[in-house]
């Protein structure tokens, strides 16, 4: 008897091959049959003709902290994701000495925008070493976790405060190698480093003080295990990104390791940015290197409020001058009818309809709940005002604490990005799940892949899209037991409707420790998610299953 039988579906096995009618049989958490399988089972999941696919893998997240009180990394799992990779960008929660916790918390808060209570009240911090962190994670996981170890914390452990001041000595580099080896033995899927990130005081994170010799020595250890190097390059400058691609390629070839860098954006302002980077990646793969660029599917949204200056207004001199003033003077100016009259006039003869009309009131702040999600054009119409005046008045009425969203302001050209995502050398990822909590939602990129790039643009087939975020991702990261529907592999499975799978609307949620707020997106079209053979999510609800593991 099977433990679970997922039947009556379209089997899309993660290889990119066309789907076919059938099901999947599961025993002891493993797949024991794929295709025309039949027999009795303790649990039967009727796919009802929907797609049965391997669970999706998210290779760039910052769920390191959240996983300690939310083992499903909500809402990632309900989007069909069954495995997340935390520990990116040089930061992980281990190895870390007790004395260094405050320093690391500051760095994490800078990236994740998580309230301090998340680190002090939501879990018991019992470990210092990487094995201890993995043990703490596994106590309550319902999603699988393939954790990276961060270069910055390895430096902190070995060098203390000097990690953020200077290059390492030969002895210190040797100690870092030993520590990395210990972390890889304990289950780290690789090492992450950053050439970009800063801490809460704007100081470069420790990994940025490393010289090339140090990174080379650490990659030698990765080579002993064949594990991944993840890098944040200077993605805001094409030429430097290309130089980093070359550096990663040399490390990949020398130590026979896979490498990946993230993010890689397309931008209409520098239209050859992504093309040049991908071309260089292709050249380096031809040399035998493995340098995987990670590209996100979702467009970038810009948000701002009148609480602080924003470059969003940088083409409106009067607005710039007023919003640059200290708060008291700014408020006085915004309350002055003559000044506001001129500001509205500056916004154009249409009262700012073209400039501001499509902005959306976000919520999660002092914005009245009934206005959340509405455009300024709608709000202005309801108030009988111009959009520019509505923007100012709505802000004033709420102590300026109203955020507005300019959706799809960057990385937004589906026609350009679709072929890039379909490129076999481009790794779909860089979601940043669990980070930037108070700025934007980092969930739903997988749904957006299907709704925008499969159904709307036809940039790839549904089967190719599944393969990009399952089988190919598992291959890139060396996750040998995951990513495909194949006998003997872990039974990580998602059942979804290919006609409706998508991301939901962005909305504020107040579910962080300390009443912290974050932006989230629900999933559409996801029916059931199984993790290691247990149903973890079905019919819109999470189950009590805790079948997730730390995996390599």
């Amino acid at each position, binding site marked *: 008897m099977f433990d679970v039988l997922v039947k009556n579906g379209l089997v899309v096995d993660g290889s990119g091959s066309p789907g076919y009618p059938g099901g999947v049989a599961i025993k002891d958490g493993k797949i024991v049959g794929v295709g025309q399988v039949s027999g009795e089972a303790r649990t039967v999941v009727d796919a009802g003709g929907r797609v049965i696919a391997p669970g999706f893998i998210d290779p760039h997240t910052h769920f390191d902290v959240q996983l300690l009180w939310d083992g499903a990394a909500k809402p990632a799992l309900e989007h069909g994701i069954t495995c997340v990779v935390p520990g990116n960008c040089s930061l992980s929660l281990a190895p870390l000495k007790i004395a260094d916790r405050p320093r690391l918390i500051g760095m994490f808060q800078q990236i994740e925008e998580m309230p301090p209570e998340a680190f002090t009240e939501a879990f018991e911090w019992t470990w210092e070493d990487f094995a201890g962190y993995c043990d703490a994670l596994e106590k309550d996981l319902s999603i699988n976790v393939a954790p990276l170890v961060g270069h910055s914390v390895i430096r902190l452990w070995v060098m203390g405060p000097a990690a953020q001041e200077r290059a390492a000595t030969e002895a210190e580099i040797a100690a870092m190698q030993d520590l990395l080896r210990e972390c890889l033995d304990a289950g780290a899927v690789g090492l992450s480093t950053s050439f970009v990130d800063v801490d809460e005081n704007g100081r470069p994170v420790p990994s940025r003080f490393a010289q090339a010799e140090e990174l080379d020595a650490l990659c030698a250890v990765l080579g002993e295990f064949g594990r991944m190097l993840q890098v944040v390059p200077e*993605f*805001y*400058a*094409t*030429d430097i990104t290309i130089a980093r691609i070359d550096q990663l390629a040399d490390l990949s070839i020398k130590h026979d390791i896979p490498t990946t860098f993230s*993010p890689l*954006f397309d*931008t209409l*302002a*520098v239209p050859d940015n992504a093309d040049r980077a991908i071309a260089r990646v292709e050249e380096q793969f031809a040399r035998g290197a493995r340098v995987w660029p990670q590209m996100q599917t979702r467009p*970038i*949204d*810009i*948000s*701002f409020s009148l609480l602080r*200056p*924003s*470059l*969003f207004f*940088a*083409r*409106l*001199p*009067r607005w*710039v*001058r007023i919003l*640059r003033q200290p708060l008291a003077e700014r408020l006085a100016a915004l309350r002055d009818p003559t000044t506001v009259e001129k500001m509205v006039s500056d916004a154009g003869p249409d009262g700012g309809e073209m400039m501001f009309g499509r902005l959306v009131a976000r919520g999660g702040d002092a914005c009245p709940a009934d206005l959340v999600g509405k455009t300024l054009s709608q709000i202005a119409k309801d108030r009988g005002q111009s959009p520019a005046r509505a923007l100012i008045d709505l802000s004033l009425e709420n102590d300026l604490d109203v955020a507005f969203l*300019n959706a799809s*302001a*960057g*990385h*937004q050209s589906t026609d350009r990005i679709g072929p890039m995502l379909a490129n076999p050398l481009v790794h779909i990822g860089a979601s940043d799940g669990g980070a*930037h909590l108070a*700025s*934007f939602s980092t969930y739903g990129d997988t749904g957006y892949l299907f709704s925008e790039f499969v159904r709307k643009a036809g940039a790839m087939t549904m089967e190719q899209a599944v393969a990009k975020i399952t089988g190919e991702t598992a291959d890139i990261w060396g996750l040998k037991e995951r990513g495909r529907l194949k006998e003997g592999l872990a039974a990580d499975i998602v059942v979804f409707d290919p006609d409706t799978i998508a991301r939901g609307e962005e909305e504020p949620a107040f579910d962080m420790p300390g009443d912290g707020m974050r932006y989230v997106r629900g999933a559409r079209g996801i029916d059931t998610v199984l993790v290691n053979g247990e149903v973890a999510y079905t019919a819109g609800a999470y189950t009590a299953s805790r079948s997730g593991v730390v995996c390599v």
Partner: protein
Amino acid sequence: MAEPGDEAVIVGAEIVAGHDGSAELLVRLRHANGVEAPVQLDEETGLKLMAACGALHVDELKGQSWRRIVEGL
């Protein structure tokens, strides 16, 4: 204002979407050898650059020395 040919100067600037969800400043620099290259500044640095240049409009950054960017970092 920088003298032409002396050093890199800003020849254009525009507002773009930043990785962290804020508006950022994409500055185009023309180097002394004639090569032009873009540099994207985060919102804080971009605002500092505009303030340092006394600019109220991104177009007013044209002709400014690249050194103004460094001063804003």
